C-alpha cells in the first residue's frame, strides 16, 4: 500500500510501510548507508505527517518483512494480543503519541502485549527527546533472579570487569573495584576475550567464588555465545544468566549463529539449574542499531525499526536484562554524539514500552565523533527516563573491547543526582558490608579473601 503527503506544494509518495518508516526516521548515518533515508528534510517531515495519520491497526495487516520469509515477523504477528490492543485500536500513530504522553503508568503496562515493535518504532519517530524520556519514565518493568531489578527509585549497574587476556585475577581486581563503588546489582558480567569452553568455565568459576565468598545478592554472567553457554552448562558450570546478542531479523540472528529454537533450548537449560532465589528471569540480551545492515540482513528496513524488532525477540524469553550497545556498532551507523544520544533514548523508550527491563550501554568508539561529554548528556537523560541499568567500567575505559562506556563513578553520580538507589537486596548488602561509609576497604571485602593478596 502506498502513502502520500504534500509539503509546501510538493507531493511525496512512499511505496510501502517499510519505506514510510525509513523516510520518517530522524537522520542517522546507517540509514543513509543503506540507501533508505529521506533525501531531504521536507521529505522526512512529509513521511512523519503521513505516518502520524496511519491507523495503528494497519501494522497488523502489512509486515515490513514478509511473514513467510522471517521467523521474527512470525513471532511478532503470531504473538499479538488483540485484547490488549483494544484500548488503542482506534488510534492513529499520531493519536497514539498523544495518548502515551497523557496516559498513567498502569495504562502503559496494560497495552504492552497489544503493541508490535513496528508500532513502537513508528511513534518514536514522531517524538522529541523530552517525549521519549517522559513516556519511558512512566513504564514499570520488574525482573528477578537473586535480587529485584527495575523497582521505582532504583538504578542498577552491570559491573563490566573485562581484561585483555581474561586473566582471572585481573578480572577479580576490577570486580572488587566496582563493588567498592556500588556497582554490580544488575549483574557482574564479563565479556570473554576468548569464547572457548575452558576460558568461559574458568571465568564462571572465579565469579562464583567471588559472589559466594562475599555473599553478594546478585548474579554473574560470562557473555559468551549461547552455544558455549549450553556446553558449559552440560559440564555443570555455575551459569546464572545465559547471554546472547540478538537482532530484529532472522538473517541477522543467523549471522550471530542463533535462531529462536536455540534460545528456547538455552533458557530451558538455565531454568532447570534453579539457581535464582527470587525469580527465574535467566536471559541477558544485547542489541544495537545497525547490526542487521552490518550482516546484510536488513530487507530495506531502517535500523531503528529493526532494533525495535529485536526487542520482540527479547521479550519472548522473559529476560532479566536487555541493553542496547548504542554507540558500539560504529560511526557508519551512528556517526556522532547527536545520533548516539537520540538512538539511545529511542532504544530505551521502545524497549520499555514493549515491556523489557531496558538498560543502555552509554558508549562510543574512537572513530565516532563523540566524547565523554556526549555520554554524560545521554546518561543523565536516561537516568531521568528511568533507565533500568547502565554499565560500570573501570574509569569508563574498556581495556579489552577498546571502547568507552560509563564508569563506576558515573553510576554513583547518576544515582546521587536523582536520589536513586541500587536494587534493594544489593543496597542492604552494601550497608551490611560497610561499603561507601569510609575511605578504607571494609574488612569483609579484603582483597586477600578473593586471592588478591
Amino acid at each position, binding site marked *: 500500500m502506498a502513502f502520500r503527503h504534500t509539503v509546501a506544494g510538493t507531493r511525496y509518495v512512499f511505496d510501502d510501510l517499510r519505506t514510510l518508516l525509513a523516510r520518517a526516521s530522524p537522520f542517522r548515518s546507517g540509514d543513509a548507508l543503506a540507501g533508505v533515508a529521506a533525501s531531504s528534510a521536507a521529505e522526512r517531515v512529509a513521511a512523519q505527517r503521513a505516518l502520524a495519520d496511519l491507523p495503528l491497526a494497519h501494522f497488523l495487516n502489512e509486515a515490513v518483512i514478509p511473514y513467510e520469509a522471517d521467523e521474527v515477523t512470525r513471532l511478532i504477528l503470531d504473538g499479538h494480543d488483540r485484547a490488549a490492543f483494544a484500548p488503542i485500536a482506534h488510534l492513529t500513530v499520531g493519536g497514539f503519541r498523544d495518548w502515551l504522553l497523557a496516559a498513567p503508568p498502569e495504562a502503559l503496562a496494560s497495552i504492552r502485549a497489544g503493541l508490535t515493535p513496528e508500532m513502537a518504532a513508528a511513534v518514536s519517530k514522531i517524538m522529541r527527546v523530552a517525549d521519549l524520556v517522559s513516556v519511558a519514565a512512566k513504564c514499570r518493568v520488574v525482573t528477578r533472579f537473586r535480587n529485584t531489578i527495575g523497582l521505582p527509585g532504583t538504578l542498577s549497574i552491570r559491573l563490566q570487569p573485562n581484561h585483555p587476556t581474561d586473566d582471572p585475577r585481573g578480572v577479580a581486581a576490577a570486580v572488587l573495584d566496582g563493588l567498592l563503588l556500588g556497582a554490580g546489582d544488575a549483574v557482574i558480567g564479563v565479556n570473554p576475550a576468548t569464547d572457548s569452553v575452558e576460558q568461559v568455565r574458568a571465568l564462571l568459576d572465579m565469579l562464583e567464588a567471588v559472589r559466594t565468598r562475599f555473599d553478594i545478592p546478585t548474579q554473574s554472567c560470562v557473555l559468551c555465545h549461547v552455544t558455549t553457554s549450553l556446553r558449559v552448562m552440560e559440564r555443570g558450570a555455575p551459569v546464572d544468566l545465559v547471554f546472547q546478542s540478538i537482532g530484529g531479523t532472522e538473517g541477522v540472528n543467523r549471522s550471530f549463529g542463533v535462531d529462536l529454537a536455540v534460545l528456547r533450548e538455552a533458557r530451558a537449560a538455565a531454568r532447570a539449574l534453579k539457581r535464582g532465589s527470587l525469580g527465574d528471569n535467566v536471559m541477558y540480551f544485547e542489541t544495537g542499531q545497525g547490526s542487521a545492515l552490518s550482516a546484510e540482513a536488513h530487507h530495506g528496513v531502517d535500523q531503528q525499526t529493526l532494533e525495535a524488532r529485536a526487542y520482540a525477540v527479547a521479550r519472548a524469553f522473559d529476560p532479566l536484562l536487555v541493553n542496547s550497545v548504542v554507540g558500539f556498532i560504529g560511526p557508519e551507523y551512528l556517526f556522532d554524539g547527536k545520533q548516539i544520544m537520540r538512538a539511545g533514548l529511542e532504544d530505551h523508550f521502545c524497549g520499555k514500552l514493549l515491556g523489557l527491563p531496558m538498560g543502555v550501554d552509554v558508549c562510543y568508539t574512537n572513530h565516532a565523533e563523540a566524547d565523554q561529554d556526549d555520554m554524560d548528556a545521554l546518561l543523565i537523560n536516561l537516568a531521568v527516563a528511568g533507565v533500568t541499568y547502565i554499565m560500570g567500567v573501570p574509569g*569508563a575505559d574498556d581495556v579489552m573491547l577498546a571502547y568507552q562506556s560509563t564508569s563506576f563513578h558515573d553510576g554513583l553520580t547518576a544515582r546521587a543526582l536523582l536520589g536513586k538507589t541500587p536494587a534493594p537486596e544489593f543496597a542492604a548488602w552494601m550497608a551490611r558490608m560497610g561499603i561507601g561509609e569510609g575511605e578504607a576497604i571494609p574488612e569483609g571485602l579484603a582483597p586477600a579473601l578473593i586471592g588478591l593478596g
Partner: protein
Amino acid sequence: MSAETPPAPPAPWAGLRRFTPARVGLGRAGTGLPTAAHLDFQEAHAAARDAVWSELRPEALGLDAPVVRSEAPDRRAYLLRPDLGRRLRAEDAARLPRTGGVVVVVADGLCAAGVQAQAAALLRAFAAPWPVVVALQARVALGDAIGEAMGAEAVVVMIGERPGLSAQDSVGLYLTWAPRPGRTDAERNCISNIRPGGLSHAEAAAKLHWLLRAARALGGTGVALKDEAPALPSLEGEG
C-alpha cells in the same frame, strides 16, 4: 602519561592496579573522578582521536611500492562509507603489475600511526620476496581487489587497527587465499595486536608463515583453517 603509568595513588585500593591494566583504584572526588584521573583519560582519548585522523605518508615508509587508493575520497567518507573503502579505484587497478604469488598490502585502516612506524620492520621480519602495494583509505577487503588485479594466490593485508585508549599503534595482518571481491571475513585469518608490548614482529611473521603453509595445503583460508591453528586470535570485525 598513559594508562600504564597512572598518577600517584589517590585510592586506598590503588594496589589493585598491579593485577590489571584497567583504570581501577582511581579514588574519587565526591562521586566524580579526581582531576588527575579525569585528565589522564582526556589525554588518552585525545591520542586515540588524533590517531584515527592520522594520514599514512607513503613516501616516509621507505618502501619502493606502488600507491593505490580506495574509492573513499577522504577520511570522513571512509568512516561513513565502509563500502567505498573496500573498492579499488579503476585507474589504480589498471596500473598494478600482474605478479601472481603472495602479495602484501600495507594499508592505513582505522589508524595509520602503527603502520607508519612498523611496516618496514615487519616486512623485513617476513623475510620473503613478496611484492608490496601501499593502499590509502583502505578497509581489509580492499586487498581482495588488489590481489585479484595482481593475479595473487594469496593476499596479506597489513592494516592499522581501531585505536583504543591504551594503544594507538596496533597493526593487524589479514590473510586471504585466492582473493577476489566478495570474499567475507569468515574466509580470512587474522593476526592482531602487533605492536611494541603486544605481539612481536618475529612472532607475527612465524604465525603468518604457519598460516600460509596451512592455507596452501588446504587450498583456502578462514574458519576451517582457524580451527587447526594453535593459539591464534579470533577474527575481529575490522571489515
